[in-house]
Structure formats: structure tokens, C-alpha cells
């Protein structure tokens, strides 16, 4: 399978916003995938993600922009099964979800906490590709599926804190990358 990544301009590394920043809690706006600003931000998200140790995905609200846009790349992650490599996607949604399972998540925007969150182990995600505007469907599983759900949640103004499995499912983060 070839790369799903469109041609992108050079990306800039942007500062990552932390909760309780309001931009993380508002639903992102739909974007025009052909807007040069959207294409540039897609490149910036990927560049920022790549310099952030352990980070497998980054959504626009995490760099202070309330748009439905994210980058994702779980390549090399030990819990990944299906891997599509680097992807940038706009206006994405989960179309199908099954095989729910609980896992512990952390987030660059909530650096000191982790939470136990139920996510689908199999998903079909659909969105549009910045730069080409083509519709992209990604069917994936395991860790990549979890990562897509986490980023799509960011675009809807949801943090993992909104989905924790119970009152004792929030933990102090104990290990740092």
C-alpha cells in the first residue's frame, strides 16, 4: 500500500496547548481541504507531532486552532497491528466501530494524567485529505483505531477525560517519555 499522505509544504513546529484551554473543549469547525491555510496547518501538525517524543497524533485544537483537522502516525508503536503510516485528515468521522476494549491513554494536552477509556478496536474512519480534497476511508484496528478515535474526539472538543470509564479511572501519570 502506498502512502496516504498528500504532498505538503514544509511544516512548522507549533507550541502545544494544554487543558484547561477553552480551544480544547469547543467543537472544531469543518474546514475546506483545499484552503492553503488548512494544508499548511496539516503540515505543521505533522511536523509538531514528529518532534514530540511518543506522540502518535495531533489535532488542530491542540495547537490552538478550532478546526476539524489532525495528523496521525502510529508507525513502530508496539501495540499497533494495522498501520497506514502518516495521515493528515480533515472533517473526519467514525463511520463504523466495534470490538470495544478498555485501555489507558495519555495526551500531550493533559500531560500529568492518564485515564482508562473504552475505545473500539475496529473502526472505519472517513474524512477528506488536505491538499487534494479527495475522500479517504481508513479501515483499521487495535492501536491505530484508538489513535483515530482520540484525534477525532479532539476535533469535537472532547478529551479522554470526557470518556473515562469511572470515578477511579483517572490516574497520575507515572512514567515520562
Amino acid at each position, binding site marked *: 500500500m502506498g502512502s496516504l499522505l498528500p504532498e505538503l509544504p514544509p511544516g512548522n513546529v507549533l507550541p502545544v496547548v494544554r487543558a484547561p484551554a477553552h480551544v480544547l473543549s469547543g467543537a472544531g469547525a469543518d474546514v475546506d481541504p483545499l484552503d492553503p491555510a488548512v494544508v499548511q496547518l496539516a503540515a505543521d501538525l505533522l511536523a509538531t507531532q514528529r518532534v514530540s517524543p511518543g506522540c502518535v497524533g495531533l489535532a488542530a485544537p491542540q495547537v490552538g486552532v478550532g478546526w476539524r483537522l489532525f495528523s496521525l502516525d502510529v508507525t513502530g508503536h508496539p*501495540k499497533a497491528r494495522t498501520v497506514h503510516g502518516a495521515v493528515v485528515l480533515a472533517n473526519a468521522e467514525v463511520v463504523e466501530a466495534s470490538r470495544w476494549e478498555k485501555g489507558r491513554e495519555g495526551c500531550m494536552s493533559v500531560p500529568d494524567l492518564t485515564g482508562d477509556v473504552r475505545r473500539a478496536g475496529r473502526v472505519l474512519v472517513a474524512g477528506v485529505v488536505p491538499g487534494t480534497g479527495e475522500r479517504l476511508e481508513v479501515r483499521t484496528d487495535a492501536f491505530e483505531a484508538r489513535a483515530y478515535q482520540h484525534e477525532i474526539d479532539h476535533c469535537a472538543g472532547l478529551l479522554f477525560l470526557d470518556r473515562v470509564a469511572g470515578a477511579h479511572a483517572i490516574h497520575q501519570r507515572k*512514567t515520562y517519555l
Partner: protein
Amino acid sequence: MPLLAVTVLGADRPGIVAEVTGHLSRLGGNLEDSTMTLLRGHFAMLLVVATDRPIGEVEQALAPVAADGTLDVAVRPVPESTATGAPGAPHLLSVHGGDRPGIVSSMLGVVARVGGNVTDLTTRLSGDLYVVVAEVDLPAGTDTDALASALRAAADELDVDVSLRAVDADLL
């Protein structure tokens, strides 16, 4: 700001959390960390409150909570730094089997002998079934295979089942 630990223990009834936190709020206290649970209908809550008020004043403010004699309230200072050194690797220890005395002490004794620190613990007794779930931080360099073997040996003596697994969180 200084931190105080407030513990509230006793018979459960609706409104305890609202009442305790209401008194603390009126003192200008800020709840930092808190946990509360019910154990067989027994209410147990621990709050860490940041406040400049002296302990005596906080105790006085909370006195009405304990007035009917069904709840015990205690207020203690929290030392400035209670850091327990370098963070360990979080693991989940799960034990289940027929109820008998000594399961928790035996199994967590094995963990303690390698310097593991319990950070969260739940036990449940359901009929004859006893269940223990403990989160333990294991020091860097712990031989987890050897620990798992020692836990299995202890579990065999108690005729219970045990599992130990890493619960590393994934950064997304």
C-alpha cells in the same frame, strides 16, 4: 498554600460529600485531590484541601458533620513534599480465588519484598469468591519474570489465581 488531609469515615447517607465540601468551600479551601468510596455501606472519603486556615478552624467548621455521631472526621497536615522518589513502572496485580484469611497480606508481601509500592487497591468479597486488584509501582530494574514466579508460588500456596501485567499508558 499549606495542604490539609481531611478524612471522613462512617455510616453512609445522602448529602455527606456536599456537606463536607460546602463547609470547606465557605472557608475558602480548594479541593486538590480527593477519593471516596463505599465499602459495605461504610462511607470512606479522603480529601486534600489547600487552605491558609489553621487546622483548628477547619476542624471546627467540620464539627457539624460529625455531630450525630455516625461519622468520624479527622484533619491532618500534609507534609510539603511526600514524593516517594523516582516513579516506578505501573503494573496491575489481579488475584482471585476462594476466600481465606491472608490473601492480601501474602500477595502484597511478595510485591513489598522487591520494593513495589501499592498506589491503588480494591478488594471485593462476593460469596466465596475473593478478588484483589492492586496497582503497584515497581522500581526500575525489577525482574518482573522473577516477581511473577514468586507471586505464582504464593498464589499456589493460597490456592488462588494471580496475574501481573504492565499498564503503561499510551500517549496519543
